[in-house]
């Protein structure tokens, strides 16, 4: 392995990263997951941690761009240079850039994540069978609205599992329209457009207006690439048009005719001979995960390795079951040490452990040679010493923080003033000590408490319950409800991590069509959040001592500490 001259490295281990934009080739969730996994490659073998932030300057800023993309090192079109990254430091240092003239996949061809349908966002399975015919790409067959769909199993006829494919007719990404679909035709600069366009931009990204008049409304988004979008040529990102005419012959699929390099291409209008618009058909593409893991190696201080099988070797090659090479591990550990590995375990006390059933322990070493003394600490006397609360919710305008039979109240009008601890049993005698989530129904002022598979409803001092979750229509496989979110008009969303339900508070039954996948509707928050609550109109997802704040338009705009930023602890 090699390090940069002067052993450039970060002076802190808690590295932050921010994804500035996304490639049209892959769904945003898949891109973020690839980056998460790429960082994990390094955090598993070092003391480094990587946390995604959504605003401000991160240590590692990640962007997709092509050709001249804002630094002195332009990319070079398809193939050739795939990405580059800078060694640790301020400003552009530490940043990673990916060439968006490449076709980004997970290394084995187009990845089409579906939306809507009945497959919970699963990816398309190609080829799939529909009405006895085999399909190798998304199709609008069987529909009258022209929307592209695919089967998420190999046999739609048998399994009936499907979802809709990326299309500007369904949604956009980025821009300022919160994912709204394109509106066609739309007016831009006085001209009418019937399709996504690159006009008005110098970066080659295809966009559309999400109202009928961009000049007036200024609302826009970027068009996701269809699974048949071409790479390179003179129509990057435009979909193939089938059938197309080439040298007076009609083609219904990609062809290598006209070329002597056997590469498949298609026309992006119905007639190549007249329009001469074309591009290469999607190939295996490059694994964003593998390339990102390599670039992040640079971003933490590693240069290119001379070991051919090492991740830090400069040439790209696809590996199905990736494992970090010992040369890479030696490199990162040379800079940062070995860390605790992927599954750190708590330190073992050297004397007999006291009863820690309801307390955590602090280990105090009085001198290097004496026996270690274990001092129990009860964090529940001070809200600022609680690492993670069981539940947080707003009741009668005050935030309530629940933990192990106690709770605290904090007024948003007087930041820093915390009242408590108070005993849960003094205020709500029927409740158990651990509350998973709670919410106040804004219409009736009833307070719902959830613990395990049971729930209680308090109206003043009158209580109903406990009753089982099955009464709400929630299946027996659900262990508990960890979060709740008032949605107005007597509806509340109930979360158990990766799934959520919509509860009709009046009928006390969840609505049809639920559960749904949390990550589909609330992108960018941890799906294993242990608490979800509404505060000042924003949605908060908690994990450990952190929270992810999501605006009513479902954009994560802040990640912070519950203790410092919500409780206002010193």
């Amino acid at each position, binding site marked *: 392995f090699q390090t940069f001259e002067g052993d450039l490295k970060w002076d802190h281990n808690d590295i932050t990263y921010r994804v500035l934009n996304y490639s049209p080739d892959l769904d945003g969730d898949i891109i973020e997951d690839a980056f998460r996994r790429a960082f994990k490659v390094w955090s598993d073998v070092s003391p480094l941690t990587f946390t995604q932030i959504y605003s401000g300057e991160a240590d590692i800023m990640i962007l997709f761009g092509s050709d001249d993309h804002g630094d002195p090192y332009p990319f070079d079109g398809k193939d050739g*240079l795939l990405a580059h*990254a800078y060694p640790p430091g301020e400003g552009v240092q530490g940043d990673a850039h990916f060439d968006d003239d490449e076709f980004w996949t997970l290394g084995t061809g187009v990845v089409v994540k579906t939306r809507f349908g009945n497959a919970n966002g699963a990816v398309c399975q190609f080829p799939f069978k529909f009405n006895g015919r085999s399909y190798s790409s998304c199709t609008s067959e069987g529909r009258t609205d022209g929307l592209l769909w695919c089967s998420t199993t190999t046999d739609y006829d048998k399994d009936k599992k499907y979802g809709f494919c990326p299309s500007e007719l369904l949604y956009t990404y980025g821009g300022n329209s919160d994912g709204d679909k394109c509106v066609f035709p739309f007016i831009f600069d006085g001209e009418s457009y019937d399709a996504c366009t690159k006009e008005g931009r110098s970066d080659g990204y295809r966009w559309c207006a999400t109202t009928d008049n961009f000049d007036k409304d200024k609302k826009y988004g970027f068009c996701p690439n269809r699974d048949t979008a071409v790479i390179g040529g003179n129509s990057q990102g435009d979909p193939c048009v089938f059938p197309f005419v080439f040298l007076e012959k009609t083609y219904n699929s990609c062809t290598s005719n006209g070329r*002597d390099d056997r590469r498949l291409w298609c026309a992006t209008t119905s007639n190549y001979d007249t329009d001469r618009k074309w591009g290469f058909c999607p190939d295996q593409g490059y694994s964003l995960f593998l390339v990102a893991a390599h*670039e992040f190696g640079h971003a933490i201080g590693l240069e*290119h390795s*001379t070991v051919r099988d090492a991740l830090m*070797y400069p040439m*790209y090659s696809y590996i199905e079951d990736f494992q970090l090479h010992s040369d890479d591990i030696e490199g990162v550990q040379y800079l940062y040490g070995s860390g605790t590995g992927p599954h750190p375990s708590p330190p073992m006390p050297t004397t007999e452990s006291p009863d820690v059933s309801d307390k955590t322990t602090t280990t105090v070493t009085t001198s290097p040679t004496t026996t270690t003394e274990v001092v129990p600490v009860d964090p529940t006397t001070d809200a600022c010493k609680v690492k993670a609360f069981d539940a947080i919710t707003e009741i009668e305008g005050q935030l309530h923080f629940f933990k192990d039979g106690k709770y605290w109240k904090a007024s948003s009008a007087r930041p820093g003033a915390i009242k408590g601890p108070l005993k849960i049993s003094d205020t709500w005698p029927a409740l158990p000590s651990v509350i998973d989530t709670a919410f106040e129904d804004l219409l009736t002022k009833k307070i719902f408490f959830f613990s395990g598979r049971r729930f209680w409803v308090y109206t003043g001092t009158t209580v109903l319950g406990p009753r089982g979750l099955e009464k709400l229509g929630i299946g027996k496989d659900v262990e508990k409800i960890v979060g709740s979110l008032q949605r107005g008009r007597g509806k509340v969303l109930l979360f158990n991590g990766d799934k959520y339900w919509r509860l009709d508070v009046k009928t006390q039954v969840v609505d049809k069509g639920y559960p749904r996948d949390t990550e589909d509707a609330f992108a960018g928050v941890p799906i294993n959040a242990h608490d979800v609550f509404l505060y000042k109109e924003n949605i908060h997802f908690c994990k450990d001592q952190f929270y992810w704040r999501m605006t009513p338009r479902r954009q994560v705009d802040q990640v912070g500490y519950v203790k410092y930023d919500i409780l206002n602890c010193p």
Partner: protein
Amino acid sequence: APLQSQPQVRVTFPGELVSSISDDELAESYLERFGYISKRSRSNTHVSISKALLQMQKKLGLNETGELDQSTMEAMKTPRCGVPDVGN
């Protein structure tokens, strides 16, 4: 399969980056881009290219011939990271 082979027509596609540079020019550009030769020392002399090729072949684990052989040319055409191999 077609019963009789048809003459293959080769078309020049608009916008395609048709490489008109020679292997030597491509090699020099590669060696310069990835830090094996500096712009100043790019004097087209066979000696400096040969030395840089040796360095590149060693760095990338290729046969160290100092010549622009087929495996070296293939390596230069393989997709890769844009960070230089040598220098800053």
